[in-house]
């Protein structure tokens, strides 16, 4: 077995710069999976979005565990900068009568100092759960989306930067659309992923119910948490050390071109979406213990990243299927390229 000793392991070697980000992901994964059952892929996608500095739009029905998910994520992050008074987790329930200032915060007059003080809104948090984002007015939506894009809010001509680790999990109900303001494609573009959550598997559901009946709520307290700074460092390390081959970028462009050429698509995906895809791919690779992106990652993420950025032709209802169909050739070419 001498030979075995001398061989480098295919996974990341010890004291590799990617050890830290990998560990961050592992710890978060463990905590989330402990508290939310049967949502492994959604958890993975959310973590990827977190690592890739993107935001997630969950499309699901009430009571599917998204608050638990977002809350657990927020609680898993140790606020290592106590002095900024930014909480780990905030939830905003969007309603039609909400005003932008309700989420960004407002300047109030302090009688003591006879001056205006900015009172931060709920958006100043590491993890923000925006529940039913399509129920609120476009004005609020745009304020929210500006915050997501710019990582800052502007109140009374003063810009207040948000934390580096500003991560939004928005939800919307796919049914019950009466009185809603559906997000236009341009705004959907701000989200890295749009994830459709289906009902969880039978076993997982039994598990959830049993936990409640037996009074044995899941305790994730004993699992290690992650410090805020670690996540920010992990992002930087990932950006630096996970390799994206030229074949992969070719593949992404080919997918985009194929989608644009498809007659089922009215408006194809933007170049920005390809740029956003790269960190997501890196995070996915990292999550799978690799320091390079493969065809597997592209195939996995392409539908989640691209399908909400398309306008489909009338009569076509399955954006995932369209993206899969369009990416098949390009991914196959990427797979074949490895033997060249």
């Amino acid at each position: 077995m001498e030979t075995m000793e001398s061989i480098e392991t295919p996974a990341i070697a010890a004291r590799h710069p990617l050890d830290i980000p990998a560990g961050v992901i592992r710890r978060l994964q463990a905590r989330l999976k402990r508290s939310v059952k049967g949502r492994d892929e959604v958890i993975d996608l959310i973590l990827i979005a977190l690592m890739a500095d993107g935001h997630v739009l969950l499309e699901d029905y009430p009571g599917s565990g998204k608050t638990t998910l977002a809350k657990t994520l927020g609680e898993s992050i140790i606020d290592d900068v106590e002095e900024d008074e930014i909480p780990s987790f905030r939830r905003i329930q969007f309603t039609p009568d909400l005003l932008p200032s309700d989420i960004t915060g407002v300047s109030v007059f302090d009688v003591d100092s006879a001056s205006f003080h900015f009172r931060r809104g709920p958006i100043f948090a590491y993890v923000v759960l925006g529940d039913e984002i399509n129920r609120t007015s476009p004005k609020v939506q745009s304020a929210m989306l500006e915050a997501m894009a710019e990582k800052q809010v502007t109140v009374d001509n003063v810009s207040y930067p948000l934390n580096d680790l500003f991560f939004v999990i928005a939800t919307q109900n796919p049914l019950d659309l009466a009185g809603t303001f559906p997000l236009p494609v341009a705004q959907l573009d701000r989200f890295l992923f749009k994830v459709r959550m289906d009902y969880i598997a039978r076993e997982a559901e039994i598990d959830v119910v049993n936990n409640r009946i037996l009074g044995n709520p899941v305790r994730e307290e004993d699992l290690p948490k992650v410090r805020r700074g670690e996540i920010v460092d992990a992002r930087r390390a990932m950006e630096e050390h996970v390799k994206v081959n030229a074949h992969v970028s070719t593949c992404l462009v080919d997918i985009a071109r194929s989608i644009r050429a498809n007659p089922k698509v009215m408006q194809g995906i933007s170049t920005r979406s390809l740029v956003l895809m790269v960190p997501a791919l890196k995070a996915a690779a990292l999550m799978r213990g690799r320091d390079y992106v493969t065809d597997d990652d592209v195939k996995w993420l392409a539908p989640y990243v691209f399908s909400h950025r398309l306008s489909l032709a009338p009569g076509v209802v399955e954006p995932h299927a369209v993206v899969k169909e369009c990416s098949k050739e390009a991914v196959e070419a990427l797979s074949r390229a490895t033997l060249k």
Partner: protein
Amino acid sequence: MLSKLKHVLWVFSGALIWSASLGVLCSQRSPMALSILAAVTAGLVGAASGFFLARSRLRLAGLWLGAAALIALVCALISFARNTTLFSVVLGPSLLFSLSEACGWLLVPWILVAVLRASTQRQSAFVVLEVGAVGLVLSSIFAGHRDGFINRPFFLVDPLFGAGWDPTPVFLGLGALVGVVLIGLMASLSAQRRSFLDLFLLMVLIFGCFLFVPVARLKDFQGKQLHGGTGDLKLPGDGTGEGQGGQGGSQGQQGGSQGGSQGQQGGSQGGGQGQQGGAQSGGQGGQGGQGGEQQQGQDGQSQQTDELKFSDRQEQEKDSPVAVVIFRDDYEPPGGVYYFRQDAFSVYNGTKLVRDASGKFDRDALNDFPTRATPVDVPELRDFRFFSETDKPRVGSLDPTAFKQLETTVALIAEHSRPFGLNNPVSFAPRSNPDPSKFQRAYSVTSMVVTKPYKEILQYQPGNPSWDQETWDHYLAAPRDPRYAKLAEEILQTLPEEYRDIPMARVIAIKLWMEKNCIYSLTTKHNASDTPVESFLFGDRTGYCVFLGHSAAYLYRTLGIPARVCHGYAVEAAQRGGGSSLLIRSKNAHEWAEVYLDGLGWTDMDISPERTLEKPQEQVDQSLQQMMGELARKDPEDPPPDDKPRQDLQEILRKLALALLKAFPWCFLAVLAGLYGIKIYRRTRPYFAPDARLPVVVYRATLDKLADRGLLRTKGETRGEFARRLSSLCPSFAELTERHLEHALGPGARPSNRQRYLQLMQETTRQAERHASFGRKLLFILNPISWWWVK
């Protein structure tokens, strides 16, 4: 909606094409309004049925089998209805006939069209069959136009000629029309795109048909013409005989192209008929006593003599010149008589010898005038033609020392139905008519003429060693009458003892005996007999050449010597008088017996009786002969005879196909070797590849080995997914895949460990074939193209 309408329109146009071509075909084959209506309906209904059949649950094979069974049933039913007295009594024969014809024309095409169209709709490649079928139907109508006969088919060209029009543009237009129709049919079958495969299949179909359809046989086949309104096509076996000869004769004398060619058609038709009803016609034709047909034979006129007629009185009409033969070289026949063979009769039908209609025997007599240089299709003569001094003669080929090549030009004064030439013609070639006001046509014949004196004939053996049993039986078929054998035995008794075992001596003995004991007379009384030849030979032995020839041939055959009777002209050599031209008169018409000798071929063994009841023939006017010869020779613009053998396209293609077939195994082996070479190269490459390439070549070799076992990455499956799919079977493969991907997509070069890679490859292979038996492993190794699918 619009596309659906378009589709329906196309389908309908296909139905129209079918119904039109069936109608046209029917109008040729069964020209009755009811039949044509039935055929047209069959096309439409068949196409519609095909449309629905294609949507049924029946399988294609079932469709075809069912159709075959149905067609057989329909044919059986129609034949039953025709042969049952009840129906003919109830309906009357003519109504029954037209009804049954119409039924046949309705049902059979209906079934065929339905099945063809259904097949095409199921499987687009069947379009080839359909287009082929319509093409065949349409081209069969113009089949008479083959070989550039501008005056055929008659039904089309005769009216045009009558109106003074040139038929060429009509033919070109019709050809183009047929092309358009076929393209329309092809387009009508499906709105989907036509693949190149169809085109290829069509070409293969045509090529295959061309290879395997015997074109030479087809040439002798003439379309069945039912509407012979003029009555000149009465069958020879027609017992009434009343006025037939005269009518035929007058027809013949009209001479025009129509009479000639129709006579020819009647000829081939009558060939079969004569064979069937020959016994009857032999006796009854004689009873008719008209003798007209014989007269035509004498005349050498256009009416065909498929069989030689026996009659009581051979008509002697005025002696007229029929042809001029110009000898290109001096030649004196050893027997003193030039025999110009026009026709040969060798099929014994119970009474007499008739022409062979199968095309297998007597191929040295041509059926048509040559339109280009035509070699005679007889093996020994063909050999002769290409025989050179150095070649060793084959078994059964002719003795080169016994012959010399002689070219003759024949200018016909009277219309003939087929060309004649001296014995053993090797090739015929057309010549331009030297003087159309005097001559009907001209052609040249190259013959191998015998130069050996007759006395040397004794050394030759009868028959040909290369003949098969069928040929022997054919040329030895003789009457079973025991009197022949008895007579032959008697004649042989006159032969000296030492010659009795020499076959040719026996032949000559018979010839001499007959010459001594028969009397030549144009008047006989043997026709009343059912067996005219026996009546002659065992009676008063008084008769003319037909009787003499037949008797001699039967006696020769009784002795086991292959013999036949030939028809043509016999002219005394002395008549030529040293000049180069020979005038043939109608009185030179003759029938004689021939025997086949190994090395000499067919040799005349004519009987010229010592005693004759007829006046001696008048001598020909030498100056007339000279003058006609000069006229016939006046052809300065004649191109030199095309001596090249005709390039037979079919033969060339057949050779090509054969060569391809022969080359195929080698090509196949070469391709196989190439495939194995690539397989081995890809497999052994890991052992000598540079380190930088190692992850790729090792991975490829592993994939090849997995592909041998049918484990292939499906399209759209990523490398990782494939490895996960195989993880339970080959756990090592996952690591190998990871290493490979890391090399291909990972962050730059890392040291690759050759040993570990090879180990992983071997482990994966071992795991993959863990459960395979030895036989299967062998199969894995032998599969030459498994690597092809590795991507």
